[in-house]
């Protein structure tokens, strides 16, 4: 009899929890993706223009005062293969078959840049418990503050691009990520300059500008007819250093970062599909919005926990008082 009541109670509690979570699953839709900031600063990386010279990688290290990664005895250039505590920006290679033709999916090769995408609705910012990662309202730049950071590395798990990187090889390490050359002591954007990588790029593959400008440029390019001649700008899109004319490649009709997981301020275009270039399988809804939907349903103003605590206190007190069995003595 008593056991049955106990089991009933257990089931009742589970049911209550289920209801709570069901409620949350409905309202979890409540928070949409964060809004795009058209005036945010960003970059457009056109893979078809990239020649893989890695001038951007070298310039990035110079501006951000980081040492090159040397793996072989050659010591001729930076050999970083991926982002790390020493590398905020890296050029990777796609190869297929004989790898003869540039920008061909079969028997071709192509370059792809990896650096912080500066998400419109960033997972790292949502996941950080101590607000060490923040969206700068004016510029849209995702900044990092080592003085707040506790090194839990939740940002790394929450970034769909594996961008934030911890210095595992240091006694007192920190997270490193691209801050668009605008962190304290560098402040290139505040000074009206562009990012180091965009400035160094000799082909205009990395272009600097506002998100709105860059998106327009990307749309213009992907709409062009392959083979036509287009005058490609270089440097800062609002005041290009120079232009160069070049036949239009066969662009995929896809601007990475226009919509992926709420969009990014750094966007990519390419003639190779992005899954082949190692981009993650993202949909339009940001994971941050879903996570926050659940979290705020359960914890908004701590209302649910407060009600639960009041109820539990009442029940526990009554049970302790009624049979004197409680009180743990």
């Amino acid at each position, binding site marked *: 009899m008593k056991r049955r009541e106990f089991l009933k109670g257990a089931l009742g509690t589970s049911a209550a929890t289920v209801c709570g979570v069901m409620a949350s699953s409905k309202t979890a839709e409540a928070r949409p993706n964060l809004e795009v900031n058209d005036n945010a600063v960003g970059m457009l990386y056109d893979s078809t223009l990239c020649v893989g010279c890695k001038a951007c990688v070298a310039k990035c290290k110079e501006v951000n005062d980081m040492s090159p990664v040397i793996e072989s005895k050659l010591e001729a250039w930076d050999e970083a293969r991926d982002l790390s505590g020493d590398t905020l920006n890296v050029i990777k290679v796609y190869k297929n078959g004989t790898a003869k033709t540039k920008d061909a999916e079969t028997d071709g090769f192509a370059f792809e840049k990896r650096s912080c995408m500066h998400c419109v609705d960033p997972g790292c910012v949502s996941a950080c418990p101590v607000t060490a990662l923040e969206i700068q309202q004016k510029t849209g730049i995702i900044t990092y503050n080592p003085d707040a950071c*506790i090194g839990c590395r*939740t940002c790394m798990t929450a970034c*769909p691009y594996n961008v934030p990187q911890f210095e*595992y090889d240091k006694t007192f390490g920190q997270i490193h990520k691209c801050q668009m050359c605008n962190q304290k002591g560098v402040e290139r954007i505040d000074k009206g300059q562009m990012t180091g990588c965009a400035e160094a790029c000799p082909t205009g593959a990395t272009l600097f500008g506002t998100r709105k400008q860059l998106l327009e440029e990307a749309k213009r390019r992907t709409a062009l007819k392959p083979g036509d001649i287009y005058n490609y700008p270089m440097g800062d899109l609002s005041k290009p250093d120079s232009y160069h004319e070049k036949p239009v490649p066969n662009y995929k009709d896809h601007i990475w970062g226009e919509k992926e997981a709420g969009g990014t301020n750094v966007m990519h275009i390419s003639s190779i599909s992005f899954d082949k270039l190692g981009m993650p399988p993202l949909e339009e809804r940001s994971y941050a919005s879903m996570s926050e939907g659940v979290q705020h349903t359960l914890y908004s103003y701590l209302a649910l926990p407060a009600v639960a605590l009041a109820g539990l206190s009442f029940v526990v007190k009554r049970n302790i008082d009624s049979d004197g069995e409680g009180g743990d003595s």
Partner: protein
Amino acid sequence: MSTYKPIGGRILTPTFIFFSIIVAISIYFMAQRFIYGMGSVANINGGFPWGIWVVYDVIIGTGLACGGYALAFTVYVFNKGKYHPLVRPALLASLFGYALGGFGAIFDMGRWWQFYNIMLPWNWNFNSVMLEVGLCVSLYIIVLIIEFSPVFLEKIGAQGLIKVLDKVLFFFIALGVLLPTMHQSSLGSMLIIMGYKIDPLWQVMQFQPLLAVLTALIMGYSIVIFEASFSKASFGGPNETPLLAVLGKVAVGLMFAFLAIRFVVLGVQGKLGLIFAGDFSSLMFLIETALFIIPALIIALPSQRQNPSKLLIAAVSMLFAGALYRFNAFLFTYDPGPGYSYFPSVSEIMVTLGVISIEILAYLVIVKTMPVFHRGEHA
């Protein structure tokens, strides 16, 4: 009218020495980690920022420490006083499990010297699931100390303090039920933002918190059975099998709820086919499900569940099932994309074994010297 007594006996047994040696080895590697950085000891990397130190020591370790939570629910919320004798040993194990989970979190923390930043309200990011977990676990460790403090107070004979504590203990017991419900479910919520990195069979999005809190309770009831069975074998004492069998039934009931919700959600998400895809994830899923179903078969039969060793097998199977569920979701099938892999290093594993050993050593010392176990007739 306390009928709790220290078990007594020698402390320096061969078992004690064995675990002490493991602790000594692990301290060597922990020192290395603090001197040369985490990379010198652990194999965590840019794609796998969380290795076994987080996933075992904190995420699974606190799940295995849910005995106190499960029993607090049973005894104080559902008013089942006859389970009272099991409460103190369970609280002790919870206290150690959580304290060491907290300790594990500190030495896994990349910037541990700034850990206090998470306690400072002006740093708080209320969108962060990790904030909820961090604060809630810290608070629960304090609540566990208060819940367990009558044992210390009895030991030193502080009757006055015990009386005061008795008046307010109900509030801390209520917190001791609420806080684990919160952070154990949040451990699941942490998976949501990891998105595609979590294998589709484990990525159930908004259902993550529900499945996580169910596994916490399943592991909680199972660890109570496990500890009570082992204590009986090691230290003697009254036969508690009939009581434990009922707890086993509750755990199996929760497990059915867990499996039902999980399969329905996977069905709605159209992922049931992945279970038989024949890849690593599907294999892990099937092993996990088998570990959940074995105890159900044992506990369904009254003759089986009254048999102490069968009941122990069921409990161990459920512990493995709950632990494997969390391992699979957070680590084994975690996929950050091409170019990254993770397998723990020997030194990394030694640190985790050291943490487990500290827990066992401290448990042994305290039950031998303090009034934790119930040595009378059951109510």
